[in-house]
């Protein structure tokens, strides 16, 4: 069985100690092959991340992990523009771009494309591959038919293709910080209130339905997207990499469960049963894959 298990970047504002401890455990105990590191959501949080970055990279590499650095997803103000310019000058690690401004700086040099890059079709993938893209993580909303066609196109071009298989789905980004707004602050005066919500700030509808979570400028699903049962089909299509996103759950356990699934040591139903034992704080969803409402969950035998 083939397929590479990856750990996506931490999207939330975890404090530096928590992050360092988290990655130490990943380095020592998790079977993931590749770890994406970096602050993707908010440029104000970046100093927390950068201070320990070299140490975390070293720790993960000693643990046998490949480390890829992920860029910011929103680039508007001068600080963010400078950060993106400097990011694209990194040559010590592979980098993943999440904003088009990075494509300007990278100018044909090798890079990966992150899931917020809107690679929806084979022509876009081909055009970007001709300009240096070696790997693409597909948008989270793509249904099975499109993932299949993209995987075939990627294989033809020798490009790696990655799909998120676990974690809350990123549904929108904005210029406005909804964490700051909830606390009647502005983004410039946020006092890092997002740190209070390490798994996102819940938004519940007025009829009490758990619906979304807010992570600064990002809005994510309340449900944890989970494509455990769909992994065989994806691999047959040519999907080469499977991405698990860090949540406030036992991520060593989650990555072990997915590693077993990818290696063929557990089937879809068994994998879902093992995930259920972890008492995750939200229901699972896989509607996007089935071309249905993203929040829905179809069982392993659903057509």
């Amino acid at each position, binding site marked *: 069985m083939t397929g590479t298990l990856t750990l996506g970047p931490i999207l939330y504002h975890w404090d530096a100690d928590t992050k360092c401890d988290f990655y130490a455990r990943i380095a020592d105990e998790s079977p993931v092959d590749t770890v994406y590191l970096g602050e993707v959501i908010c440029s104000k949080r970046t100093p927390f991340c950068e201070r320990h970055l070299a140490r975390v990279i070293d720790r993960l590499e000693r643990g046998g992990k490949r480390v890829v650095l992920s860029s910011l997803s929103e680039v508007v103000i001068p600080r963010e523009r400078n950060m993106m310019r400097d990011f694209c000058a990194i040559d010590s690690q592979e980098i993943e771009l999440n904003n088009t401004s990075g494509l300007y700086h990278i100018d044909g040099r090798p890079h990966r494309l992150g899931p917020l890059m809107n690679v929806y079709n084979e022509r876009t993938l081909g055009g970007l591959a001709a300009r240096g893209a070696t790997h693409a993580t597909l948008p989270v909303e793509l249904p099975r038919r499109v993932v299949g066609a993209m995987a075939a196109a990627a294989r033809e071009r020798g490009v790696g293709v990655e799909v998120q298989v676990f974690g809350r789905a990123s549904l929108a980004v904005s210029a406005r910080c909804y964490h700051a707004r909830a606390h009647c602050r502005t*983004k410039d005066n946020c006092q890092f209130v997002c740190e209070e919500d390490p798994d996102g700030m819940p938004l519940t509808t007025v009829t009490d339905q758990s619906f979304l979570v807010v992570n600064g400028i990002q809005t994510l699903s309340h449900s944890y997207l989970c494509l455990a049962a769909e992994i065989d089909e994806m691999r047959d299509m040519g999907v080469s990499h499977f991405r698990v996103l860090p949540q406030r759950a036992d991520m060593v356990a989650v990555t072990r469960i997915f590693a077993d699934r990818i290696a063929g040591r557990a089937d879809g139903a068994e994998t879902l049963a093992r995930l259920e034992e972890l008492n995750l704080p939200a229901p699972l969803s896989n509607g996007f894959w089935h071309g249905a409402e993203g929040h829905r969950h179809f069982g392993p035998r659903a057509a």
Partner: protein
Amino acid sequence: MSRPELVCPAGTPAALRTAVDAGADAVYCGFQNATNARNFPGLNFTPDEMAQGVAYAHDRGAKVLLAVNSFPTAGRFDLWRDAVDAGARLGVDAVIVADIGVAEYVAERHPDLRLHLSVQAAASSPEAIRYYVREFGVKRVVPPRILTVAEIRQIKSEIPCEIETFVFGNHGLMVEGRCCLTNYVTGLSTNMDGVCSPAAQVHYDKGPDGSVTTRLGDFTFDCFGPDEQAGYPTICKGRYTTPARDESYYAFEEPVSLNLAELLPQLIEAGVEAFKIEGRQRSRAYVRQVVSNFRAAIDQVLAGQEPHLDDLVALTEGQKQTVGAFGSKKWR
């Protein structure tokens, strides 16, 4: 001071004629399918209607901009290719695109066709814009509705292409082209299908006390008392609860519309080449009133006068208006 173009919505052939007659310098419109970001039932143009629309506009000195600004999915690219080819054949003055693959197709196959970058491409920095100019020869960009006037002025000074900003209509909160909230709720995608909060899945549930609960798909987005006017359930204008708030609140934005009439002089001074009015889904009466008002206001600013606009607030969503992100960084 150069004379900025007034770019107006044309959801139907009748709206196109109305906009042109009301003083639009250009209209934007799309074909009747998923190739544009306003793929609503009853809207948009057949190829024949597009040909007639182009003739009508050109006869009166106005331009037609074709929106091909959704994201084709793998295996469906032909539909977007055909839309671009049809636009070129019918003599549209520019195509508005968001997808890199579509941009590349236009640049390769129709190098003489003017290329505009849609707001859906989310090009929010000079570098992002310069990427599209360098790689595909984009001539005009519509940046996301998240920038202040000062930031627009700065961007304009750093890019080798024209800039078009929204001045009136729907107030987008999420970065355009980076939002799949509708798909999460309805199974239809803004990027892939060109729909946002589709009417077919909207429900107004009446309670025994006469209150109305508005729903999209399975989720509730607001509740209204018996005497209140129930608003359309748009996910990013809904009310929610969260532990940090004692009461439900508009977590993203209140139901307000964008109106930058008061900022027109500053935007012209910043070098903006075109002003866009949102609303291909709106009525002819809306188009007539908004277009004629902005036509007059722009001409007044250019003549060195104070712009005078009728009260357009009655036409806006929720009958409330805002300058949104354009006024100050504090909006963020």
